[in-house]
Structure formats: structure tokens, C-alpha cells
């Protein structure tokens, strides 16, 4: 009985250790967790003084090529993101709250499927402010900072986010965002494949 109890305790410990280890974000294995020195991971988007940002936008998804404009507008409560074609037809309209929740206000019927809605929303979420919380993991690697938050891994250098990876579960890489030197933003989702390129429009107002 005593032997069984020892075996059981050992087994329980092993299960616990394995369980805890597997709960750690897979991409961050071997790194030491540190305390974040910031409250908010700043958005990749360059907002103007009115809290607005306008980008040229190209999307390739489901054999459709859409080009147009993506408009980001910050308010006190949320960030509204709207995408429209060059002809002005609205494709997508999403509101994001500070805690990473989103609400689809509109999506064009061609794209109105749950996984498409989620793909667009979560990919755009990677570009916006992220509130540091107890669920945010922070690591330092050489001269880069790494944040793991809401299944997204942010790579920062000199306080600027240069790359974001989005995972499903702990391992499956779903999408990646890369900042280009030209301030262009490339978003690549692998499955289902969606490609988005955003280029800032400097002189959008007359």
C-alpha cells in the first residue's frame, strides 16, 4: 500500500511537471520569464493626432484579390477598423476593445463565413495595442524583447514591434506579421491562406 502511495505520488508529480511544462508557450522554451516593464504593447499602426490612420491595402484570399483602403480610427472605447475597395465598397468593419475582444459590424457577403471573420479579426488584432496582463509572458533574448499574449508572440527591438506570430494552441503557427523598412506591413496567414499588405497613406486628407 505504502509502495503504491509512493508510486502514485511520483506519478502525480511527473504528470504535474509535464502538465506545467506543456502549458508554457512552446515558442518560448528555454527562455527565462521576466517581469514586463511596460503596461501596453504599442500598436504597429501609425495613428495621426486625430487617432486615425489610413493604409493602402491589398488582400488575397479565397481566389479573390481586393485592393482598397484600410482605415483605423481610435476612440476612447475601441479601435474601429474598416476596409473598403478602391471603388468605395465596404468589405469589412470591425470594432476592437482594449482587452482584445472584437465585434464584426459588417462583412461583405462574399466573406461572411465564421472562419473568415475570425481570420480577419485576429490578424488585424495583431496590429493593435495589447494590454499587458497577468497572462502576458515577457522574455528577453539578446537585444530583443519577446511578449507572448493571447496566443500571439511579439518580437520587439528598441521598443518597436518588428514581427508578430499568431499560434493556435501552443504550437501551430497560423499567421505572421512582418514590418518592412518602408513602414509597410505584411500579414501572412497560412491556413487558410490569406495575404494582406498594408502601406501607409501619408496625404489622405485634402
Amino acid at each position, binding site marked *: 500500500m505504502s509502495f503504491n502511495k509512493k508510486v502514485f505520488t511520483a506519478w502525480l508529480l511527473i504528470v504535474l511537471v509535464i502538465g506545467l511544462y506543456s502549458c508554457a508557450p512552446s515558442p518560448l522554451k528555454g527562455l527565462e520569464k521576466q517581469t514586463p516593464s511596460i503596461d501596453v504593447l504599442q500598436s504597429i499602426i501609425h495613428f495621426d493626432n486625430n487617432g*486615425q490612420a489610413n493604409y493602402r491595402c491589398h488582400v488575397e484570399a479565397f481566389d479573390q*484579390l481586393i485592393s482598397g483602403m484600410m482605415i483605423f480610427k481610435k476612440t476612447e472605447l475601441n479601435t474601429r477598423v474598416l476596409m473598403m475597395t*478602391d471603388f*468605395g465598397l465596404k468589405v469589412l468593419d470591425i470594432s476592437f476593445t482594449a482587452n482584445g475582444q472584437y465585434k464584426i459590424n459588417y462583412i461583405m457577403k462574399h466573406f461572411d463565413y465564421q472562419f473568415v471573420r475570425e481570420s480577419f479579426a485576429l490578424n488585424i488584432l495583431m496590429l493593435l495595442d495589447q494590454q499587458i496582463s497577468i497572462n502576458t509572458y515577457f522574455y528577453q533574448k539578446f537585444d530583443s524583447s519577446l511578449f507572448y499574449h493571447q496566443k500571439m508572440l511579439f518580437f520587439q527591438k528598441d521598443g518597436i514591434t518588428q514581427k508578430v506570430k499568431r499560434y493556435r494552441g501552443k504550437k501551430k503557427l497560423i499567421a505572421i506579421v512582418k514590418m518592412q523598412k518602408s513602414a509597410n506591413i505584411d500579414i501572412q496567414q497560412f491556413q487558410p491562406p490569406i495575404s494582406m499588405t498594408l502601406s501607409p*497613406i501619408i496625404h489622405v486628407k485634402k
Partner: protein
Amino acid sequence: MRSIFISMILSLSSILLMGQVVILDNPDFWIKKINEKTQDVASLQADFEQQKLLSFLEEPVVSKGKFWFHEPNQIRWEYQYPYLYTIIMNNGLLTVKDEGNEHTSDLSSNQIFEQMNSLITGSIQGKLLSDDEHYSKKYFQTEGRILIRFIPKDMQLLSYLDYMEIGFSKNTLEVETLLMHEPSGDFTKMNFSNIIMNQTISEDVFQ
């Protein structure tokens, strides 16, 4: 409350943009005149200004450029402001030129462009006026324009455009405005100016 206020502002902006709008009493007379004019349109070039009014933005989003059309279905949209960008629709092919990159695809594989293409060519050539299969129509006028509102019968088109409105000049009978109104109340308005009709356009324009 805020959304009601914004809707009121949008409606007011819409009215201000379009002038005083009243029901057209004698649509048959004007349709006949417009048909006579548009059936002779072999080519058209114009400047355009596109305004997009969105409920959550204080100011419209403005784009400008040049437009070319040649029958039966060659179109070139050249956006010059706020960015350089060209869309060419030519004999079933869609070519997009953007920052030195060029992308050509089959127009039929891009439903949105294809639908826009048929709407625009149909409105220039007046074909929409006789298209009772796909649209029901309402007729209005302002001091200087005849406004024909096309309400789609196709449910898919209706889901993103509750109506389109084409404004013809009473003087020249040319298409001067194209309004695309969304169910949310947001809308896009295109104003055409410096319209030149039936002048030879180089084939290079559509390449």
C-alpha cells in the same frame, strides 16, 4: 443616441451633396432623351472625385483621378490622389497597376470587380435604364440633374448596396454623378467632370 445623431448628419450631408431632391414627374420624357444620348456613346473620358462618407469619421475619404471608357467594355480607372493606382478592365481581363507592380487576372474570378464593371458600363451606355430584370427604379430630380435610383433585385448585391443612383445633367444628359448607398447608411459618391465623349482613345490606355 450617438448613432442617431451621426445618421442625421449623414442624411443631411447627403442632401447637401445632392441639392434639393424632388420626385420626377415625367420620367418617360427624360428616359427617352437620355437613351437617345447614351446609345451614341462609343467612348468617354473624364476626371472623377470619389467621396466616401462613413458614420464614424467626421470627414469623407476623398480620392481623385481620371477615367476612360471605350465600348463595349474597356475601362481604365487611374487614381492619382491620395495614391497612384490604376485599374484596367479590358475584354474580360482585370489588370491592377500599383507602385510598379502589375497584376493581371480573369475578371470573372473577381466577382466584386465584375459587378462594378457591369454597373459602370451599364450606366454610361444607358443599358441599366432598360434593365428591369435586375433593378427596379425610382426617379428624382434636382435643379440641374435627373437622378435615377436603381434598387437591385439580386439579394447578394442588395446585401452591400441597397441602391445606386445615377445623376444625369439636364443640359448635356451626361452622367455626372454615381452614388452607391449601403444598407448601413454609409455611401460613396463619384462626381465626373471635364467629360469628353466620342473622342478617339489610344488602345495603349487600356494596356
